[in-house]
């Protein structure tokens, strides 16, 4: 049994911080269920990339960007039932993706792989995580006013359509970041569960972000350290840890 080196933890922790920040906005935008569904669209991208011998994460990212553009264009037309379209399209993506892949590959795409990333992959991953974090911090005011009221946002000169688009692209990038570690099924959960915990415990935006980022990074750390000791995959452990944080905060909130 061996503990992971500090440098091996840098990328997963950066990714968890990005997930916690993007998740805060996603949950406040009432995208709790949609977020999970959107992450599924990565699967056909991953399997298609494998078929043509390309980088699977890059394939997943391309599919996610297309998914984000689809959600965005549906959101622009207020009279279309967004929920229904997201439910149907993204479940269909999961089905098509599974048809393209074989057994072992499929499990890896769904739940993440244990392989270490190459130095180049790690560098790209860290840059992407940093980009998401910088965006989530710098655009927070625009994002918050837009989710409270797009009309108010317009009157103070916010470009609502562009703000929503950039958010969805940052969301897609965050999911792509986690594909290798957590896979398609679990990455959506790392974005949503810590943020849901934050919403449960916090009464202010700053409080929500602290809880969300803290519990995402804490779960990632706990899962990464416990996985080699218990001899199980990291991804499911990380999500189990974040769910444990959520239920603990649920109990705490009921007591108060």
């Amino acid at each position, binding site marked *: 049994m061996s503990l992971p080196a500090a440098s091996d933890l840098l990328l997963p922790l950066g990714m968890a911080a990005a997930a916690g920040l993007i998740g805060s906005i996603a949950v406040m935008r009432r995208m709790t269920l949609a977020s999970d569904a959107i992450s599924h669209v990565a699967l056909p991208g991953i399997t298609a990339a494998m078929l043509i011998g390309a980088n699977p994460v890059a394939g997943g990212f391309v599919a996610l960007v297309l998914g984000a553009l689809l959600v965005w264009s549906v959101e622009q037309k207020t009279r279309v039932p967004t929920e229904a379209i997201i439910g149907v399209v993204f479940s269909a993506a999961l089905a098509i993706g599974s048809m393209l892949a074989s057994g072992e590959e499929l499990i890896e795409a769904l739940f993440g792989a244990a392989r270490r990333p190459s130095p180049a992959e790690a560098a790209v991953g860290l840059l992407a995580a940093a980009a998401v974090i910088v965006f989530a911090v710098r655009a927070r005011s625009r994002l918050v*006013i837009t989710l409270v009221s797009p*009309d108010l946002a*317009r*009157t103070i000169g916010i470009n609502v359509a562009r703000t929503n688009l950039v958010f969805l692209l940052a969301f897609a990038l965050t999911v792509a970041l986690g594909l290798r570690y957590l896979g398609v099924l679990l990455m959506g959960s790392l974005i949503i569960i810590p943020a849901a915990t934050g919403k449960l415990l916090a009464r202010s*935006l700053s409080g929500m972000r602290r809880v969300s980022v803290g519990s995402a990074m804490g779960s990632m750390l706990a899962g990464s350290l416990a996985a080699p000791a218990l001899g199980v995959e990291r991804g499911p452990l990380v999500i189990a840890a974040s769910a444990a944080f959520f239920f603990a905060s649920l109990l705490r909130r009921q007591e108060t």
Partner: protein
Amino acid sequence: MVNALEVSHLTVAFGKTTIIEDLSFDVKTGSSLAIIGPNGSGKTVLFKALIGALPSRGAVRWAPGTKIGYVPQKLDIERDLPLTGLEFLRARAEVARAPQEEATRALGLVDLPPETAAQPIGTLSGGQFQRLLLAFALMGHPTVLLFDEPTAGVDEPGQEEIYGLFGRLKREEGLTLLIISHELTLVYRNADNVLCLSRRRAWLGPPVSILTPERLQEAYGAPAHFHVHGDR
């Protein structure tokens, strides 16, 4: 420009349903216009078209340099949305690259105590939330204020207070006011002009010529009462 706003031949339609048809009116700079009419006559839709949030045909011309403050009727906010009133105003200041003290100044203008502004916005009462939205609008130092139902869910002394504040803003800051209201008594006493919308047509004029029993009967399809002297 003498007029703060010139609207000509404005038409707003959703699919095949026309909400506003061929509406034209002007609003003089520094004056107040009350917009009245029965439910469904398109008052809120008109505001949304004026701020460009809804597609419309015809022309909406604001005077050069106009800054709009908009106070919507109600917002669909979850009770447990983790966002305090002060955070909401500070976000507004950050977007405008204004100093954070602007948020405190705006709270003072609308008499919202700091401990109330520290609460999550979903837990504020109707009147408190409305003051917060007014503070949000005033932070941009608007030249025109669009206020959708300022007195809905506010008790009578509160209504007087809000109109008192409007009068002050109009006098001291030269603000042009557009107010949607159901409170015909307050409209009668405070508005320079009244735009009465009904599903069929619209009337524009000073309160004394618009707020007549016959006109209201025609617009509302039922007798509408109000107190001219407001001395009850």
